């Protein structure tokens, strides 16, 4: 089973968080799976980790509709952070609004990290959700 150091789940819906956690357990060995209720909490954690030189998560699951700071605002802030490693960000949404997809694509093109787009419901974690190294090389 694939081993990972840390994974973030940023979503205000406890059921989705539960679901992702459950699916991750089946496909990856990871001790630190952290859940955040909105983008602000997650970005604050990331800033703190960078300051304290704590290794950053390899994968982030990111919901779009959240209070305080939504997924897009989180991405704006995230891209400003001084991160050298490429992180896989799985944007998850129940929205079928094409504008959300376009927005994701814009971010994907200007982003140094790997960006995936996943529509709810999710039944399975794909390998590409967790790893892109093989494909990249």
């Amino acid at each position, binding site marked *: 089973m694939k081993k990972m150091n840390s994974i973030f789940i940023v979503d205000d*819906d406890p*059921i*989705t968080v*539960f*679901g992702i956690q*459950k699916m991750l357990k089946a496909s990856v060995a990871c001790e630190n799976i952290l859940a955040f209720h909105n983008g602000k909490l997650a970005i604050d954690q990331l800033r703190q980790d960078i300051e304290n030189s704590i290794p950053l998560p390899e994968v982030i699951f990111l919901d779009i*509709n959240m*209070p*305080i700071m939504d997924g897009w605002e989180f991405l704006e802030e995230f891209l400003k952070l001084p991160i050298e490693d490429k992180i896989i960000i799985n944007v998850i949404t*129940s*929205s*079928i*609004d094409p504008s959300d997809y376009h927005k994701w694509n814009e971010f994907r093109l200007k982003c140094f990290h790997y960006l995936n787009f996943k529509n*709810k*419901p*999710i*039944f399975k974690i794909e390998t590409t959700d967790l790893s892109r190294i093989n494909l990249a090389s």
Partner: protein
Amino acid sequence: MKSTQTDLNNSILHQLPFATALVDSSFNLIDVSHTWYQLFQATPDVNNPKQVFKFFEGHEGCTPELLEQYLIGNDIRTIRHKVSSKEGISWLESTFAPWFDDDKNIQGTIIQTIDIGRQTQKDIELEQTKELFQATTEINNIGSWEYNIETEKLSWCKMTKQIHEVPEDYEPNVSEAIEFYKQGYSRNKISMLFHKILQEGASFNERLQIVTQKGEEKWVAAGGKAIKKEGKTLKIFGTFQDINQQVIAEKRTKESERLLTTLIDNLPINVFIKDKDSRKILVNKAECNYLDTSPNELIGKTDFDLYDNDIAKTSRDEDLEVMRSLTPMLGEETINARKDGSITHFLTSKIPLLDLDGKAYGLIGMSMDITNLKQKEEQLRNLINVTAIQNKKLINFAHIVSHNLRSHSANFSMLLDFLIKEKEPEEKERILGMLSSASDNLLDTLENLNEVVDISTNVNLDKKSVNLNKSIERVQQNLSAFLEKNKVQITNTIDDSLQVKSVPAYLESIILNLMTNAVKYRHPMRVPEITLEASKEPKGIAFSITDNGLGIDLDRYGDKIFGMYKTFHNNKDARGLGLYIIKNQIEAMDGYITVDSSINKGSVFKVFFYEENE
């Protein structure tokens, strides 16, 4: 020999009663009668013979060339010449006759001159008048007639006969002549006029109709004048003129003029003609009706007399531009305000009027009242705006619905998928618990959506005049436990008599939501203070609720604050629905809500209630 002859004739010539001169073939005067000298106003000087030309010098109608021709001619010729002197003008008539000797050789010329004085001038005048009369007669188709009372003879000239279309040898009498006039008015009239001129000598000149010999109807001008001698009428002289074409043309002009006037007057468009200085020189009925006055009142006036300065100036500028550029202004939308302030929208055209040199001497203006059209257009535009807003709301709502319902159904699918694969009873139990809460969430969402749909579909709102303070009191009572627990201080400056036009239930919902928000998002370090105020605005009542709470970062959330499921603070109770619902309620009542806020200081929500009841 010559001199002997001269001497011989001298005495006779001198004494001739008619002015006579004898001229030799070299044009020298040989002998002259005294009378001749008198006529030519010269003195005799026999020793110094003169050339005959000398005497005719300065005479009008007699050049030296002409004179020479006459002097050497073989026949008798006469010439009339005019002499102007200090005493006045006199006319002379000289006759030139060749002078033969016994052998029929021309010796010279005998000139005899008579003074024809003023008679000649009269003759000429008469001749001229005759010529003029004839010319006029021919040009104007004027004929004449004459009636001799004594002989009862009526005579017509050639032209009169032509007009009657009778042969040249036709001899009319009075009753026949009268028969030519068209039965009815014309014949009656001429009979009466003829009778009157016979009896009283009253002249006449009348336009009447005749029927010619060939049966053609014609308009004629018949005139008559009595010629009297010593108070007694001897003759009647009259004129007779064919004026048919003239009358028909006049009639036609009048008809087309009337047609034009009728047309212009009854056009449902304001028509006016202005001169170079923009003074009205013609206005039609519609223009008069628009200005509620008569044409006489409008003629000669400019727009400055009729409208306010600004409007008149705009119009004058248009006039000047049209007359300067000679380019018509076509179908321009213009706005006009009468002195009483009423506004009219016009579709105006101004066309320059050009004289024969191609210069503008004024303009024709046409204005069509399109006020109704404009109003309809405005209504339509409003309707489109409303529809556009509604449409936007609908799309927004559709997204909300799709997103919210989809997120729940996605959760169901995912959890059910887990449940099917799960083998451990404990975990199964956990998933079932999750499913049950997902189901509750879905019900909640549906309820929320229902509430929103209710507001949006409630088109026939029953707005009433509601006392604002009583509504506030009711809300405070309902919230009393909540307010007391949070030690909220409320200041209310609203007048007890103030009424707002509102749906009562919506008003309470609005107050409740704003008040609970003010407490929910209070500043942790401060006692919550709420100030309620209201003020009368021109079109309604503005109600404001001010708090000293956390405030909202409007730069960041300004466009989302009234959105559905948008929350901005870490608050467990936040549903992100309250402001969305009250915004819908307020807009359903034609009002609006605004927010002003600064972080850590507080927020002001202002609700505007529209006063007019539709």
